[in-house]
C-alpha cells in the first residue's frame, strides 16, 4: 500500500481519555494454586469428559457385577451366544456366560492391574530416581547405565519373557507390568531432583542443617508431585494396553478370570459370527484409553501450563 495516498479524516479519531478510569487497575483475584489449576482444568472440555467417562466406567466396574443375578464364571450352555437383549445387556458368550457381568468384571480386573502396577512403579521409580539424582556422581552414573540397559530392551519383549518365566497370574502380571514401567517415573524424578537440588531454597535448608532425608521429603518431593500425577495418568492406559497385549499372546489372566484383554481376545475368535462379543469390550477399552489420555492431557495443562504440548 502506498502510504502517501491515504488521507486522514476527522472522524477517524475519537477521544479516549475520559472513558477509561486509569486510576483503577483491574487485577485478577488472587487464588490458591489448586483453584487456579481447577479453573484451567474445567475449561478443558475434553479432559472433563474424560474424567466423567473414567468415573462412570469405574462405577460400573465396581457395582455392576455386585447387583447382577448372574455370576461372571457360571457356565450355562442353554443360553449360549445370545445377542444383546433386555435380559443380557451385552449378550452372552459361547459358554452362556452373561457378558454384561463379564465385561464389567473384566474392566475391574484391568483397572485393578493397571492401578496397582502403576502404584508400584511410582514407588520404585521415585525411589530410584531420587537416590540417583540426589546423590549424583558415581552412584548416579552406575544407576543410569543399569536403567539405560533395561530401557533398551523393548517392553513387549521383556514382558513376554518375564511372564514366560513366572507364569501368568494376577500377581505375576502386576509384577511384570511394574517391572517395565518404572523407568519413566524414575527419569522424571531424577530430572526434577537435579533441577531442584541446585535451587537456593535447598541450599538454604542445607545451611540451616537439614538432613538429606529432610531435604528429600520436605523440599524436593513436594516439587515433583504434579509431574508424578501427570505421569501416572499417562501410564495407566499404557498398563491397560500391555495387559491386553499379554492376553492377546496367550499370557493373560488364567481361566475363568476376565480382563478387557482376555475378553477382546475371546471375542476375536468369534468375530465373524458374533461381532458383539469383541466389539463391546473393544469399545469400553477404547473409551477407557481415550479418557485417560484426555484426562492426563488436561491435568498436565492444568497443573503445569509450561509443559503444554511437550
Amino acid at each position, binding site marked *: 500500500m502506498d502510504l502517501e495516498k491515504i488521507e486522514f479524516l476527522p472522524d477517524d479519531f475519537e477521544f479516549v481519555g475520559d472513558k477509561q478510569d486509569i486510576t483503577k487497575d483491574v487485577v485478577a483475584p488472587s487464588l490458591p494454586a489448586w483453584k487456579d489449576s481447577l479453573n484451567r482444568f474445567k475449561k478443558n472440555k475434553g479432559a472433563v469428559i474424560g474424567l466423567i467417562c473414567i468415573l462412570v466406567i469405574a462405577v460400573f466396574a465396581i457395582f455392576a457385577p455386585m447387583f447382577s443375578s448372574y455370576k461372571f464364571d457360571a457356565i450355562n450352555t442353554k443360553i449360549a451366544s445370545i445377542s444383546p437383549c433386555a435380559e443380557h445387556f451385552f449378550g452372552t458368550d459361547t459358554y452362556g456366560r452373561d457378558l454384561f457381568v463379564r465385561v464389567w468384571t473384566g474392566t475391574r480386573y484391568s483397572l485393578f492391574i493397571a492401578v496397582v502396577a502403576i502404584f508400584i512403579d511410582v514407588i520404585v521409580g521415585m525411589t530410584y530416581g531420587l537416590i540417583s539424582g540426589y546423590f549424583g556422581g558415581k552412584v548416579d552414573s552406575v544407576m543410569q547405565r543399569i536403567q*539405560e*540397559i533395561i530401557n533398551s530392551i523393548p517392553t513387549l*519383549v521383556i514382558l*513376554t519373557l518375564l511372564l*514366560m518365566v513366572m507364569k501368568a497370574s494376577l500377581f505375576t502380571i502386576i509384577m511384570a507390568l511394574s517391572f517395565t514401567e518404572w523407568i519413566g517415573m524414575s527419569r522424571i524424578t531424577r530430572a526434577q531432583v537435579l533441577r531442584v537440588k541446585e535451587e537456593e531454597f535447598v541450599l538454604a535448608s542445607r545451611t540451616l542443617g537439614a538432613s538429606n532425608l529432610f531435604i528429600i521429603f520436605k523440599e524436593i518431593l513436594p516439587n515433583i508431585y504434579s509431574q508424578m500425577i501427570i505421569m501416572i495418568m499417562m501410564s495407566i492406559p499404557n498398563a491397560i494396553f500391555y495387559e491386553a497385549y499379554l492376553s*492377546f*499372546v496367550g499370557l493373560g489372566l488364567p481361566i475363568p478370570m476376565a480382563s478387557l484383554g482376555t475378553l477382546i481376545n475371546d471375542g476375536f475368535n468369534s468375530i465373524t459370527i458374533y461381532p458383539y462379543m469383541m466389539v463391546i469390550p473393544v469399545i469400553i477399552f477404547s473409551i477407557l484409553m*481415550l479418557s485417560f489420555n*484426555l484426562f492426563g492431557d488436561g491435568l498436565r495443562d492444568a497443573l503445569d501450563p509450561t509443559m503444554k504440548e511437550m
Partner: protein
Amino acid sequence: MSNSTLKYIGKRLVISLITLFVILMVLFLMVKFLPGSPINNEKLSVSARAAIEAQYGLDQPIPVQFVRYIQNMLTGDFGVSFNLYKDMQVSSLVGSAAKLSMIYGLCAVIIGTVIGMFLGVFAALHKNTIWDTIATVISVIGVSIPSFVFAMLILLLFASKLRLLPTSYSSSNAVRSSIMPILALSVGVIANVARFTRTEMVSVLTSEYMTLAKAKGLDRKTLIFKHALRNALIPVITILGPILVNLMTGTMVVEKICSVPGLGKLLINSILSNDYNIILACSFLYAAMYIFMMLIIDISYGIIDPRIRLGKDD
C-alpha cells in the same frame, strides 16, 4: 562434521555396543531360566532326551554355552531351531521374518508421516475452525487407541463384512494382503505426526519471523511451504523415536491378528514352544533395532542442534 561431533558419535557407538552385549547376556540368562526343555516330544524317554540335549550342547554349563553362542553369532550363525522348525538355521528363519516386519514398519512410517503432515498443516492453517477440531479429534483417537484395535476393526469391516481385502497374509498375494496391517499400523503414526506438526506449525505461524515474512509481502504458498513448514518439520524428527518404538510393539500384535509371518509372530511362537535359539535371536534383533534407532535419532539431534547434545550428555 566437527571433531567433537565425531567424538560424540564414537562415544555413543561404544555405549550402544556395550549395552547390546549386556542385553544379550541378560536375554541369554532369561531364556535359560524358562521352565521346561526345548526338546518337546512327550514320547521320548528321559535318557533319550538327555542324549538329544547333549547333541545340541544344552548339557554344558551356561557360561560355556554363552561363549560358544557369541562365537557363533559373530560368524552369523545363530544356531538351529530346536523344535519349531527342527534343525533349520535360525538366521534364515529370523532373517525372512524380520525383513517382512521391517518393510511393514517402513511403509507405515512413510505413509503415516506424509498423511500426518498434511493433516497437521491443514489443521494449523485452519486453526480454531471446525476442520481443526475434527483433525484434533482424529489425532487424539489415533494416539490413544492401540493399533491392534484398528487392525481388528479393519479386519471386521473390510475383510469380514465387505470382503474387499484378504484376511491374512499370503506370499502369492503379498501386496494386497499387506494393505490391512500396514493401514492399521500407520494410524498411530498419522495421529502422532499430525498432532505434533500442528503444534509446531501453529507456533511457527505466530512467530515473529513469520510476521516479518508476511510483512515482506510473500505469497501464501511460499510462506507456508518455504518458511513455516520447513521450520516446523525439524522438531518432528524428535518424535520419530517414540513412534518407531510404538510401531515395533504394534507389529507384534498386528502380525498375530493378520497372520503375518513376521518377527513378532515368530517370537511368540518360539516362546510358546521353548525354541531357545529363535527366542534369543528375535529378542536380540528387537533390542538391536531399538538401540540402533535410538542411536540414529540421538546422532541426528546432535547434528541438527548441537545444544541438545550438550544438554543431554551432561
